[in-house]
């Protein structure tokens, strides 16, 4: 069988090697790229990232990647967003006032201080994810085995669970609850870092990209 090609979207902000290392370990080919054609012709796409929401959006637009990202998601290509790459899919973020996102998903990204009394911000470390749906419509991938497992988080902003129709998992931070992952068609996006979450994280990526592309 031909090895799958995963495009890791590069918008020139940060170190993408840990994502690439994880994908390589799982036996997939990958390119770190901002080339539209490479992304459109890939078997699957990862939108990674840590750092500033507004800077990332600026770069994505500079490279003309916003339309490419919407296009691959709409056509049903396997698409995985990680951390900032999860947040960018929403309508906006309150970072630096207000920044517009890609609006692939409905919702706002807000600073953790707006979620109630969270003492330690950023939220850094291993936390559990709780499955919120049993009827995740994609039958090719069984996510229930990740329910209640620990994944690695590093972030200061998050998405509310209330009114979040695309909620896949939620996570408790002290007494507050955040949306830790979402799904849409053949997209999954996570606030946590599967590439840094040990065996469970690798298995999540492996199961996801092993689906028929």
């Amino acid at each position, binding site marked *: 069988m031909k090895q799958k090609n995963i495009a890791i979207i590069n918008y020139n902000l940060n*170190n993408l090697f*840990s994502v690439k*290392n994880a994908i390589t370990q799982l036996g997939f080919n990958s390119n770190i790229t901002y080339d539209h054609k490479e992304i459109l012709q890939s078997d699957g796409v990862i939108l990674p990232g840590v750092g500033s929401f507004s800077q990332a959006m600026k770069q994505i637009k500079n490279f003309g990647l916003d339309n490419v990202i919407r296009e691959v998601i709409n056509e049903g290509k396997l698409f995985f967003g990680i951390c900032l790459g999860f947040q960018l899919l929403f309508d906006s973020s309150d970072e630096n006032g207000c920044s517009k996102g890609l609006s692939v998903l409905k919702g706002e990204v807000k600073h953790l201080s707006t979620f109630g009394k969270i003492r*330690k911000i*950023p939220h850094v470390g291993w936390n559990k994810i709780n499955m919120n749906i049993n009827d995740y419509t994609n039958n090719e991938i069984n996510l229930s085995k990740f329910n209640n497992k620990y994944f690695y988080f590093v972030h200061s902003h998050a998405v509310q669970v209330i009114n979040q129709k695309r909620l896949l998992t939620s996570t408790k931070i*002290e007494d507050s609850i955040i949306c830790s992952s979402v799904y849409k068609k053949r997209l999954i996006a996570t606030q946590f870092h599967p590439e840094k*979450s040990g065996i469970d994280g690798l298995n999540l990526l492996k199961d996801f990209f092993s689906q028929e592309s």
Partner: protein
Amino acid sequence: MTLAFRIIPKLDIKGSDLVKGINLEGLRVLGKPDDFAKYYYNEGADELIYQDVVASLYGRNGLKSIINKTAKEIFIPLTVGGGIRTIEDIKGILQCGADKVSINTAAHEKPHLISKAAEIFGSSTIVVSIEAIKQSNGKYIAFTDNGRNSTGREVIDWAQETVQLGAGEIILTIVDKEGTGKGTDIELINEVSKILKVPFIVHGGLGSINQILETSKINSVSGVALSSVLHYELVSKLRNNQPKDFEGNTQFLKSRKLFTSVQPTTIKKIKQKLNQNNILCR
């Protein structure tokens, strides 16, 4: 707390070898870091800390190739310290696959490095390492260069200052206890944990499961960095760990004689014990 309590093996590196000392001194070779890192990863380590123990002393940094290799095989956060002095140093270490850097000496020499680094890389990437030594007058003073040089700064003040500068995590080493297995300094840890709002990792002296449990019960301690207590257990298991390939002091590997109070154990056993006592672990 909803975050899991972190068990973090700390790998002290000299040249290409894993070493271990007592009170950060008298380094003895234990093996190759790669063997230890892989074993700990598979056993459920939540993170690894790599410390180039001579970098600060000799003003160099030779850890990159080890990190580069580790990052291809190990998929948990990696923190790297030792001899980091500039923004370029940090960038270089992160590009090798590290997730965080830990800084001590350079933070004292030029505190603005911390604020600048936090601004560029995000504060969650910047860990400040504090080496604490209790003075005869009862005060705890921050040291540099493996406890050799006093900065004159009190630990509590310095911890607060670095967080204000942008440190996203503090790792506190109790130098007098380090490598001894005689337990940590609960008094100081209590004091520091009260004032910190960033993750707080305790290191030095934790030589048994019960000492680790005691530390984990202190509110606001996010995790422990462990060396001897894990390494000495593993050394006895590793075959092919013959002294001949190593550069430094291999006396320990030849004699296998422990000179400390450490009661070696495994990550699995530690986590089991903590979970039994309602300390959340992964």
